[in-house]
């Protein structure tokens, strides 16, 4: 993923790479939310979970309700990891909304899916997803993710 280095620094504040990156994990499955949360916490990440795209966007400040301090949650989120198959707004649709937002587009987005479909993967990567991960997630996947997150800074 490429882009203006300067603006990215403003979004990823708080020593994201040396301390605890704040990850927003989106998945409609309760089991998977619990699993991804534990995996991320084990890799020293702070985790917020959301059960669907709408809730995720609300958390990020793009919801219907107008907030006075839109920047609060946004500046704290260093990574968004989302399931692809979700009822209502899919992970792909969520990815598009994030990339279309000037406020959010610098935040790396990772898509997870239980299905290994090359056209799906390419579609997401073309839309700006940082990575595509196959479920079920394992500890080694999250380690890879953290390395990837560190590298994208350079």
């Amino acid at each position, binding site marked *: 993923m490429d882009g203006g280095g300067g603006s990215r620094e403003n979004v990823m504040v708080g020593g994201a790479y040396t301390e605890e990156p704040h990850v927003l994990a989106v998945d409609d*499955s*309760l*089991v*998977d939310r*619990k*699993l991804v949360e*534990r*995996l991320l916490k*084990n890799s020293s990440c702070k985790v917020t979970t959301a059960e669907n795209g709408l809730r995720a966007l609300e958390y990020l400040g793009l919801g219907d309700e107008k907030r006075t301090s839109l920047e609060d949650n946004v500046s704290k989120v260093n990574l968004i990891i989302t399931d692809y*198959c979700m*009822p209502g707004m899919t992970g792909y649709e969520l990815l598009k909304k994030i990339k279309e937002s000037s406020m959010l587009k610098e935040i790396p987005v990772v898509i997870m899916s*239980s299905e290994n479909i090359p056209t799906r993967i390419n579609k997401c990567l073309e839309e700006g997803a940082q990575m595509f991960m196959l*479920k*079920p*997630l*394992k*500890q080694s996947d999250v380690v890879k993710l953290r390395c990837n997150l560190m590298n994208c800074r350079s």
Partner: protein
Amino acid sequence: MEVVQMQRAWVEYTKSLFREGFLDAQFQQLQLLQDESNPDFVAEVVSLFFEDSERLLSDLTFALEQQSVDFKKVDAHVHQLKGSSSSIGAQRVKNDCIAFRSFCEEQNIEGCQRCLQQVKQDYCLVKSKLEALIRLEQQIVAAGGSIPMEELSC
């Protein structure tokens, strides 16, 4: 029973569950995520899986009883069950779901009903086995012992 005997029983029981295909490597991933600071992680995730599965199996039963079966809905439920069973390593249930989805695609009612019976059977089996395993773990811990995860790789 002494702690050592319980630990040995735990190892044997766990190995048999893998050998007989009830559980796969993903379950080991869950076990790896459990430690002193998260001593009930496996029990918690498994419990979420039970709740989720029971709801889905009930929805599936209802959906297949309809005069006009909505195969898209049936498939959506099976997809969810496949996802959560895959995430916790409940291999037989996951494989049953894979077969189930093919029948959904073919819009084959009898095939779907057979699959539903099969998945219910395998779900009940894995549920009672996981409950027994977790009970044994709790007994070991209550007796002051630890769960000998490292012995699984022998």
